[in-house]
């Protein structure tokens, strides 16, 4: 494949903007906020890291077999919900003392239920949401049934049961929560939002069902294995597409593009469109809190891009693959983690490495999230 001679992707961007303003402004840091970095390692431990010192504060044992290492934080930062047991169970930990304050198991002997990373918490912290993919276990056969949004009350404590469920699409991965409308963002083939009080679903951005001709475009491959964006309140669903400038299939003339659907989790404002030429694989992206046009990406390299100009600004090669990335609220540090057992800390200006945190086990596919606790 050739990735050279790409046309400025900003050209394509205008045509597909469905949203209003580009979201996310760099919030000024409140001196009264402590930020903790959360991640899970194998065999199955939740780690709490102080971002002031970049030292490990404590490690909490997570019951069950490692799953994907998914984490969602309560809005007050005090409770970390961890997805475990092969994508089935969730435990909520007090991050100050590892106490388990919430738990739920989705599967029953009659039904296998998995959540493919889909987990989020309401803005008031009272509800936890998962998208459940149920398979009925009949005596001599299985039956896959419609996925559903399951709503749990976080103060139901241990062995919580869903208080409401609503049918949703198949193939949903990353969730988010829109504060203004009390909707859960459903990242699937298209990006939708579901009203958590009545189950009404609306489309935020069409991806797989977009209104572009197949002669001109390959339907986007939108996929997320991790959740982040809490540093500024954004939800990013990256996607990959190909623009045929010649005949469909003519790779020589084709453009390979990264697109992004972004949702402002405070207001629900949506922007979507192609932002960068595809130059290398990036697994996850975060936006710079101080400049909404700047994004950082992680995988085999840490990279910095200007999505308004469609330009790669800097590439910092990494010693191994890092699936994951996150940032502090003030934009002072980038954390690159996942895959292996070290979190690499970088300066957003130069991408230079400024520190490292070594953990006891591999992070594998685990989330790397920021919990903000008011002092």
């Amino acid at each position, binding site marked *: 494949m050739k990735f050279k001679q790409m046309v400025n992707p900003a050209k394509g961007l205008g045509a597909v903007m469905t949203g209003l303003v580009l979201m996310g402004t760099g919030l000024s840091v409140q001196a009264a906020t402590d930020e903790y970095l959360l991640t899970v390692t194998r065999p199955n431990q939740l780690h709490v890291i102080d971002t002031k010192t970049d030292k490990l504060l404590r490690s909490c044992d997570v019951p069950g077999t490692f799953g994907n290492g998914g984490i969602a934080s309560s809005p007050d930062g005090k409770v970390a919900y961890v997805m475990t047991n092969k*994508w089935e169970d969730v435990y909520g930990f007090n991050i100050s003392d590892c106490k388990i304050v919430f738990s739920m198991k989705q599967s029953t002997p009659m039904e296998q239920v998995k959540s493919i990373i889909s987990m989020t918490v309401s803005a008031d912290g009272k509800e936890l949401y998962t998208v459940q993919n149920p398979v009925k276990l009949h005596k001599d056969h*299985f039956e*896959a049934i419609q996925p559903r949004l399951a709503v749990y009350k976080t103060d139901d404590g241990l062995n919580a049961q869903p208080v409401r469920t609503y049918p949703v699409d198949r193939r949903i991965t990353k969730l988010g929560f829109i504060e203004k409308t009390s909707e859960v963002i459903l990242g699937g083939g298209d990006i939708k939002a579901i009203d958590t009080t009545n189950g009404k679903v609306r489309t935020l951005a069409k991806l797989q069902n977009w209104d572009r001709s197949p002669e001109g475009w390959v339907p986007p491959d939108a*996929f997320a294995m991790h959740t982040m964006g809490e540093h500024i309140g954004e939800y990013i669903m990256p996607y990959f597409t190909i623009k045929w400038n010649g005949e469909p299939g003519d790779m020589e003339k084709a453009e390979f593009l990264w697109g992004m659907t972004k949702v402002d989790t405070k207001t629900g404002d949506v922007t979507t469109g192609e932002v960068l030429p595809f130059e290398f694989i990036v697994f996850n992206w975060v936006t710079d809190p101080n400049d909404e046009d700047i994004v950082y990406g992680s995988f085999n390299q840490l990279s910095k891009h200007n999505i308004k100009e469609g330009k790669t600004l800097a590439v910092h090669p990494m*010693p191994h*693959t890092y699936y994951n990335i996150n940032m502090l609220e003030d934009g002072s540090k980038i954390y690159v983690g996942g895959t292996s057992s070290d979190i690499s800390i970088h300066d957003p200006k130069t991408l230079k490495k400024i520190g490292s945190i070594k953990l006891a086990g591999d992070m594998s596919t685990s989330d790397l999230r920021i919990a903000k606790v008011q002092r």
Partner: protein
Amino acid sequence: MKNRSMKRVLRFGGAVAFLGFASTVSAIDGPQIIKENCLLCHSETGKAEAPFSRISQQRKTPEGWQMTINRMKSQRGLLLKPEDERVLIKYLADTQGLAPSETADFRYVLEREPNVVEQNVPEHLASTCMGCHSGARAGLQRRTTDEWQKLVHFHMGQVPSIEYLAGHRDRPWFQIALNETSTQLGEGYPLVTKAWDDWKAAPKAPLNGDWVMSGFMPDKGEFSATVSVMPNKKDEYTLLVNGYYANGTKLTGSGNAKVFAGYEWRGAVVIDGRKMRQVFAASEDGQSLSGRMFLKNDDVIGGEVFAKKAGKSPVIVSVSPTYIKQGTTQTLKITGSNLSEKISLGKGISVEGVVSKTADHMLVKVKADAKAMVGDRTLAVGASSLDAALAVYDSVARVDITPGESIARIGGNGGPIPKQKSIYRAIGYAAGADGKPGTEDDLKLGYMPATWSLKPFDAVAEEEHDLKYAGKINAQGIFTPGDAGLNPERKMSTNNVGNLAVVGTVTEGGAAVSGEAHLLVTVQDFVKELIQ
């Protein structure tokens, strides 16, 4: 980005559980075994033509039944005595098996042939079902549409990430698989077929008697042998193998074989101290066997085998080499039985004499006239003959390396998974009447001896020194990949993976002609399956 994607090549290999050969006898028959062991979860339908839920609505190969029973045991909690299991699998494969014509397109997967690029798979399967295993896995089953749909539901529970995989998640995979693929499978591979009804009703020829076999083992070369097949119990045989490798050294072995559905021959033999497996199909008339024989513990190391039943009249199995150059003299090995010395190869080829003769072959010296016409010749030995047995050619114009696309896997180095090698052979062609190689009229000459080397496949492979790390090829065209594990010498401390070209060179009269194959050296396959 290093683009390591390639055409889908099947990755076979590794140790396999094999359909049991032990001889403890079960006291009860197939239906009784089902009644006593399966009805905790399955149910009786009350219908004589399909008495048991799920079990009676599908047909598959012995390996297919073995896989299902393995899953019932390992994941559903079935407890089954080994002797009952053997009887049950034989019963199911015999009564709910596939006809020879139904397996013909997919023999490679049963034979565990490595590096097959599947070509016989319908488009709807290719895009929906080949992300994890071969299309042949489905092609080797027959079900009702309802059962194909139940299979899709099974996949959703068994592999919950299935609809999220790259190549699936950009469309409604589940809905497509359930509503479109299953319907097409139900039409293309239905439970009830005339082929199976006819085959089930047809009388089956017993396979005991004397056979003449010709075959190839990558590390030993071509061989010929007589195989005495003695009946044991019904559909079970004892074998004695005696023969010769191409260089004249002797080959001896023995073992046993079991036949399923009247033609699926599964043999376990020890030849010259090495444990081997035979996966053959008997022809419908029971007069020939064809398939593959491979090392039990390294099934990449194996090759094609063909055998014919010996009778009173002469039988020709094969000729090697399959080519002769104009104006040269050559010794041909004719494998067969009761071979007479009345040999003819048509105009322009003279038989100079029989060099030697054994029970399974004859060495014959032949000479091709300088002006002998280029093309295939029929070999006649007494009253029997073999078409296109020998190609007369002017010069080697093209060499193809087979397999053209291949995968090898790093391994060993103290790890639990051995290296998965890959093997290559060179096939020569003459240019044909138009004098241009690579055109339709090229004349296939057959396997030719070659020298072997490796080179980087592309610029990225060169830059990353894949050649240095990914492995080595020997004089027999056997590639052995590098050690497993991260290599600190390499960029990003990567594994000893690589993207290589395998170059085979045939030299003839001072002129060298080369062909190339693509070899992707990749990481271990952690799951080995009976049907890949």
